[in-house]
């Protein structure tokens, strides 16, 4: 080995196999230049790794602001679906009152589909849409 070069970084990053590690350590024993380079590179590596990890700006990803992260997807999914059903019941109740502007089922469905395509937390169409049509009949 002429000089250790990039083996030094790979060693510090845990990216070397046993044979390469032995080869590197043997070389470092007898080469002051590479031993010094190892120290320098180690210092730089630590400096970059200790840069503070910045927080996301609040509101950038609402999903990432949630304090409680559900451990199981299904739980979050059910809560989302339940919230969507409640929201729809309220919306439909408002629509079926005499003073409300008449809205066709098709339009409600398309509004629902538009919302569902924009908002992933909004419930699944296959659960809620039949519920909506039952209610209107």
């Amino acid at each position, binding site marked *: 080995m002429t000089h250790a*070069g990039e083996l030094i970084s790979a060693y510090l990053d845990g990216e070397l196999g046993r044979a390469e590690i032995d080869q590197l350590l043997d070389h470092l024993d007898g080469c002051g230049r590479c031993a010094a380079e190892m120290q320098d590179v180690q210092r730089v590596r630590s400096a970059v790794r200790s840069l503070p990890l910045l927080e996301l700006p609040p509101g950038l990803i609402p999903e990432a602001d949630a304090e409680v992260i559900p451990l199981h997807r299904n739980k979050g999914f059910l809560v989302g679906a339940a919230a969507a059903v409640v929201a729809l019941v309220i919306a439909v109740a408002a629509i079926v009152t005499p003073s409300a502007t008449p809205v066709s089922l098709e339009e409600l469905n398309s509004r629902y589909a538009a919302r569902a395509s924009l908002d992933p937390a909004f419930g699944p169409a296959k659960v809620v849409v039949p519920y909506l049509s039952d209610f209107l009949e």
Partner: protein
Amino acid sequence: MTESVPLTWEEVARVYGRKIYNFAYRLTGNRDDAADLVQEVLLRVRKGLDSYQPGSFEGWLWRITRNAFLDDVRRRNRRPTAPLPEEVDRWDLASSPAADIEYSRISIGDDVQKALLELPFEFREAVVLCDIVGLSYEEIARAVAVPVGTVRSRIHRGRKLLRESLI
């Protein structure tokens, strides 16, 4: 290679949003650009998640992130700019008892950030993916679409250049 794959966009946003933000910030030195990049990447992930084939999720995600970053740089037709001082962090820290110690830590951080921005893009990218994002050389190779040997060389050369500008 077996790894657990985040299945929903929300999970990707929660688990990786902050990492993507820090990747972009360390690459550009600009918080607004970093925030824009996070949103662009999550949009692309959302579009691509259905067609994603289980495999290296990290490689896939960081390839998307990198491409979005490069597209953005091309669109703006400018190189990443120098960072603003991290005023907000300083104000936050000024009220804490350890303010003096933290000031010096952040001031060193500013030097490191400045030195990172002076690196050629390929070296800066490799160093950030390794030391900030925490990817393995193999994952970086997949994300950047170069051989692992190239990743190894870029990281080492990047660190040596950083050393020169930090000393």
